[in-house]
């Protein structure tokens, strides 16, 4: 199979602001004008393979989120995935109407399996991206983040859940709450404990902790990882994504090769 690995960027949006997250605590950074004019995201987006934009403000302001997502998506010529707080089929439909290629289901993946099945029947599994946010507490207990809150889950049930989820959607995002926003690198402890590559039947995107291109390469070098994602706006500011992409390609990782934009 000669499918390429992917470098995915995640934009976190809450109530009109793009935010930084650290261990799921949010900090406002700038609005959409800031993102395109100051951060120059239009330029940065030329160096990624996929864009995910999530409404992490508690599912509120859905219509505003969709309007802003549509603006962001129209500036980027890559697969565009959106989600956050989705609980109904009509919301999923609206995501597609506003320019999404795929929709993310997180809490709904766990609590509304019938919705997931119904959406898969209508739109196809490949249009749905499951998202699982996993944390490990100090006492060693595992928890999911559901509706913005910690939900403790026994270890064996967690393993079972990831396996079952992988057959309900087209791909899974596994996110480490402990490493989120720390820039310390991907959470290999979590990965090795939780993800059973032989039993997970869909491609997996690993998210949480990426600080530099070496972390990205480390992730993409693994056979069981299809894509590495980062939501860290500031670690890759300016030409950071362009440089990261260059380094990852230099490490011999098969990411897509694109013409320079000035050669179009």
């Amino acid at each position: 199979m000669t499918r390429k690995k992917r470098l995915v960027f995640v934009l976190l949006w809450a109530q009109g602001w793009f935010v930084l997250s650290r261990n799921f605590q949010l900090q406002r950074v700038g609005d959409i004008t800031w993102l395109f004019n100051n951060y120059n995201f239009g330029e940065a987006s030329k160096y990624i393979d996929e864009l995910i934009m999530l409404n992490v403000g508690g599912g509120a302001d859905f219509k505003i989120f969709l309007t802003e997502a549509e603006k962001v998506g129209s500036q980027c010529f890559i697969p565009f995935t959106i989600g956050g707080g989705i609980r109904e089929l009509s919301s999923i439909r609206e995501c597609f109407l506003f320019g999404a290629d795929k929709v993310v289901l997180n809490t709904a993946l766990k609590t509304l399996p019938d919705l997931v099945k119904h959406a898969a029947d209508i739109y196809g599994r490949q249009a749905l991206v499951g998202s699982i946010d996993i944390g490990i507490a100090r006492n060693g207990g595992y928890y999911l983040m559901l509706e913005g809150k910690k939900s403790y889950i026994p270890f064996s049930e967690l393993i079972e859940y990831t396996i079952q989820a992988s057959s309900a959607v087209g791909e899974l995002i596994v996110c480490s709450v402990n490493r989120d926003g720390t820039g310390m690198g991907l959470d290999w402890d979590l990965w090795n404990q939780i993800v059973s590559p032989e039993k997970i039947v869909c491609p997996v995107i690993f998210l949480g902790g990426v600080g530099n291109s070496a972390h990205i390469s480390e992730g993409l070098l693994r056979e069981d990882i299809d894509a590495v994602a980062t939501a860290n706006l500031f670690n890759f500011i300016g030409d950071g994504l362009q440089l990261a992409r260059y380094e990852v390609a230099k490490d011999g990782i098969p990411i897509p090769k694109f013409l320079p934009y000035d050669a179009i």
Partner: protein
Amino acid sequence: MITRRVVIVDYGAANVKSLSSALGYLGISHLLASHPRELDEADAIIIPGVGSFGNAVDNLSRDNWFEEIRNAVLVRQLPLLGICLGMQLLVECSDESPGKAGLSLISGKAKAFGAIQECSQVKALHVGFNSVKLDGYKDSTLMYGLTDENDFYFTHSFYLDLNDFGGCIGRTNHGLEFCSLYERENIFGVQFHPEKSQSNGLRLLKNFASFL
């Protein structure tokens, strides 16, 4: 000055917005046509597509799209580009929807990856970036300025099995090698989504519009 334009057949398939954004970025004049009579304005036609063959055929059968598209392509000789499901609609039929007929502008049929022996659940879908390798012997209009092996975004579970080997100038591997790029005279087809393939796709769309 007459504005020459691309007409996108908007028959209810998703993603016309992305395609429209891409053409807009390139400064290519275009219009989204919801009725076949709008093909009168066309200097080139794009058929996009996401979803099932059968649904697309049903949508196109309303309002006489089939006859108008065939007339525009075969009589007026307009350049036509089919994208993803739009490419599959150019052949005669698809295993996805027995009994439904495509435009029959290319001889062949669409088959399921999932029907291949020992096909895993993952391999039944082809989703992600993959390479399109050009046949070394022929020049490609769509790939002008690109290299012999280029990455584009695919998302499909059916592929084309063509009788016209000469027209297939680009192939991609997903368990088997299938035709991912077709060019013959004024008929073009790409199995991937150029509007989701960064600069590679934009270059390809620009090359198609060079007819204008």
